[in-house]
């Protein structure tokens, strides 16, 4: 396949960036999108052009590091995949592909397609945990039976990989899906209920301070989420937050 790529180039956080156009040939349909980027970078280096910086690590869709906005969609046109799991067979010979970083005020660009998502970490640090010491001196794991449905729902929420596709795709750059996934996971489990009030208040406060936008329920995040995290979680967080603020 021969492709034309329009890629966002930005030397560093302070530099002004712009879209650059590159041609690439000999792309195999079996390649993953990132392998295609590897080939492009090899070709750029031969020409003496600085290779394109992009985040990636596990390349099997679980670490959450890869983060490209491809043809106007987070992680590209395929559903339930991260960029590293997107394969070139989803494109046609002669296509023009636009590649941009995940954009949000809370995700400043570091270089090219690499962005700083430490705002996500800070939201988690504000309350995304159960306050239990790791001494191992807790009660037996089977001491509290948990309804399988709740456990399964908690698991589904917990599968969030923190990639930021929800923020990137939301027209408001809202982080509600990400934050609500963690709030939900703990709200559904007896271990997390103890400090549920403080957790949701603190996490939402941090989320707002980071400069994410407001949720307007467009539902785009759920569609683009590589792990299919449900909007139900956002409703649950709204509920938790309301009850928590009434409790004071």
């Amino acid at each position, binding site marked *: 396949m021969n492709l034309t790529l*329009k890629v*966002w180039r930005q030397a560093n956080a302070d530099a002004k*960036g712009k*879209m650059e156009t590159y041609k690439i040939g000999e792309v195999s349909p079996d390649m993953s999108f990132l392998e295609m980027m590897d080939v492009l970078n090899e070709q750029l280096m031969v020409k003496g052009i600085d290779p394109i910086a992009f985040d990636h690590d596990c390349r099997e869709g679980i670490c959450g590091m890869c983060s490209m*906005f491809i*043809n*106007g*969609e987070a992680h590209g*046109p395929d559903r339930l995949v991260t960029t590293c799991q997107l394969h070139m067979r989803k494109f046609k010979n002669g296509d023009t592909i*636009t590649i*941009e970083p995940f*954009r*949000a*005020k*809370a995700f400043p*660009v570091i270089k090219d397609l690499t962005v700083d998502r430490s705002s996500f970490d800070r939201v988690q640090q504000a309350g995304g945990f159960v306050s239990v010491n790791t001494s191992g001196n807790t009660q037996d794991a089977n001491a509290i039976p948990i309804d399988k449905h709740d456990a399964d729902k908690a698991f589904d929420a917990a599968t969030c990989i923190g990639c930021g596709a929800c923020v990137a*795709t939301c*027209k*408001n*750059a*809202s982080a*509600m899906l990400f934050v609500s996934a963690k709030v939900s996971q703990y709200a559904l489990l007896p271990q997390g209920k103890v400090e549920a009030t403080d957790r949701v208040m603190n996490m*939402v*406060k941090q*989320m*707002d*301070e980071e*400069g*994410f*936008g*407001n*949720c*307007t*329920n*467009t*539902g*785009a995040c759920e*569609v*683009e989420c590589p792990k299919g995290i449900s*909007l*139900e979680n*956002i*409703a*649950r*967080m*709204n*509920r*938790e*937050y*309301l009850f928590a*603020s009434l409790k004071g």
Partner: protein
Amino acid sequence: MTVAASSIGKKVAMALSGLFLVLFLTQHFSINLLSIFSESSFNEVSHFMGNNPIVQFILQPILILGVLFHFSMGFILELQNSGSRSVKYASYKGSANASWMSRNMIYSGIVILSFLGLHFYDFWVPEMNYKYIEVLPLNPDRYFEELVHKFESPVRVGIYVLSFVFLALHLLHGFASSFQSVGVNNKYSKTIKYFTVAFSVVIPSGFIFIALFHHLNFF
């Protein structure tokens, strides 16, 4: 940061004020509907609404505040939201993952707001002038005529129809969405969605029907 100023607080406030306006809309619609069945009942109810002190001095200010709140909050949120992504995407395929309605609430909202301006100019301002400024004598039978009179102009009716189309679009997203905002997303959500579609189609087309009815009857 107080709860009300938090993103979820604002979202809930938007939802509640929106639901309140939906209630008002239903009530307004029922009264308008009377006008095609019976001139006298319409006049009677309008007279009651226009002169009952509870309606006039308690409900009406609440409604006006509700409208103002919903709109100004909508603008504040829009401003904040557009500021949360300072560099825009070169290519952004919003249609791939969200409905047109959900992405353009601000535009449908602006159309509705402009319409409300016209509506106030048409009905509310003369009303206020009649009752409180010129203090004209009570006339319980004037309402129907005034209504019919306003629907004479085809331009006005055109604007009216267009505005209600936008209202329908606004409701299509807004109504069901308010439930999600206040934390309702469960096995009833599908029903709420169906109801939203029915409501958003029936009520605005009803308003349109009434307008056309009077417009056509005139000739």
